[in-house]
């Protein structure tokens, strides 16, 4: 019994220490003046985490938009309200599904790759040799990746929303035969620029921050073994997914909860 409590305490303390290390890592990487010489590095990272994620984002967005439109249409058609597919689709996507699904895909596609890359750099002692040469690996390796994630995720979310609405339109209007005019005008009538689009975009920035932070820290903190790397990659996906969903609930509560 004593051993159990002791074990619990030790695990809590090590978790707390990891949180502290993660905070120190983030602050040290992001503090100070961003060096304009490093813009090239950020561009390269945006290519890796953003541009290369486009294919999976577009494919998933189209399927999700199509599925949503199909579900909305079959249910709404029972009340003869097929034109409400447009507004339903747009609100669900802009407020919730767009930011959350994009962030989850981003964590799986780009977050895990970030962790593996940084973990391997540490294992093969590239990071310590950089320090030897007088280059700060936090500024040169970590910071560009965090910036790239913060810039890429909102762009990916915007593309996701656009493609998903397009996919929904293809199903509802072109295939099932809802009225195109009602589809678009209902959407324009009911969607507010800040209330729906703006708040969704704030969400996606928060998710981008969380995912890149977790990914970078897990890679930087991974034990330099094959097993440690595997654990770190898994943890990145698990922790960032849970954080995305939990913070989404909190943000929705703050943004849309009426109390």
């Amino acid at each position, binding site marked *: 019994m004593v051993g159990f409590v002791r074990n619990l305490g030790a695990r809590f303390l090590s978790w707390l220490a990891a949180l502290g290390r993660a905070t120190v890592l983030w602050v040290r990487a992001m503090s100070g003046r961003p060096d304009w010489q490093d813009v090239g590095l950020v561009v390269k990272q945006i290519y890796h985490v953003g541009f290369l994620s486009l294919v999976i984002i577009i494919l998933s967005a189209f399927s999700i938009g199509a599925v949503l439109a199909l579900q909305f249409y079959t249910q709404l058609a029972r009340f003869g309200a097929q034109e409400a597919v447009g507004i339903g689709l747009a609100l669900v996507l802009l407020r919730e599904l767009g930011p959350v699904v994009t962030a989850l895909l981003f964590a799986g596609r780009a977050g895990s790759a970030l962790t593996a890359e940084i973990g391997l750099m540490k294992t093969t002692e590239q990071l310590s040799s950089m320090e030897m040469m007088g280059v700060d690996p936090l500024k040169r390796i970590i910071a560009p990746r965090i910036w790239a994630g913060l810039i890429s995720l909102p762009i990916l979310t*915007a593309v996701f929303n656009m493609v998903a609405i397009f996919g929904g339109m293809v199903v509802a209007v072109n295939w099932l035969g809802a009225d195109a005019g009602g589809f*678009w005008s209902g959407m324009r*009538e009911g969607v507010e620029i800040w209330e729906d689009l703006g708040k969704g975009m704030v969400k996606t920035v928060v998710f981008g921050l969380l995912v890149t932070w977790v990914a970078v820290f897990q890679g930087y903190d991974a034990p330099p073994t094959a097993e440690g790397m595997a654990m770190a990659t898994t943890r990145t996906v698990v922790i960032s997914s849970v954080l995305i969903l939990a913070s989404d609930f909190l943000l929705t509560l703050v943004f849309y909860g009426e109390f």
Partner: protein
Amino acid sequence: MRMRTIEISVGGFVLAGIVALIFLAVQVSGVNTGGASQTYEITARFDDVAGLRERAKVSMAGVTVGRVRSIEVDMSWGDAVVTMEIAGEPGNLAADTGAKILTEGILGARYIGLSPGGDEETLAAGDEITETQGALVLENLIGDFLTNMGKS
């Protein structure tokens, strides 16, 4: 991968994001409705607003002409003061315009319907609509119905 290819790809990526945002703002949000065009405020007192919300529609002859800005309660009179934004320049509504709280469909959202007046004078910004009719509350209707049933 050559740096130039990467730069072009990233440029295209950022451009795609900007295009998507503009699409979402213009095509989906309809950014120009009620944005830059001129509005003025008028108020109206209702005995009961039952379920009217801020940003609800204000319509005349079925066409949206404004939005509800704020709803406050006047404790001393016990009625609700609703401030509305009306599109256009002051002077497009007659002074004896009436305001009613209506419902879209049976279960739909509450909105304010303006009925046209015949007065030569017009409402200026900040004026109050005097001829108002509050929301029909189902419980009150049933109550009235039952008491009338009892009388007859």
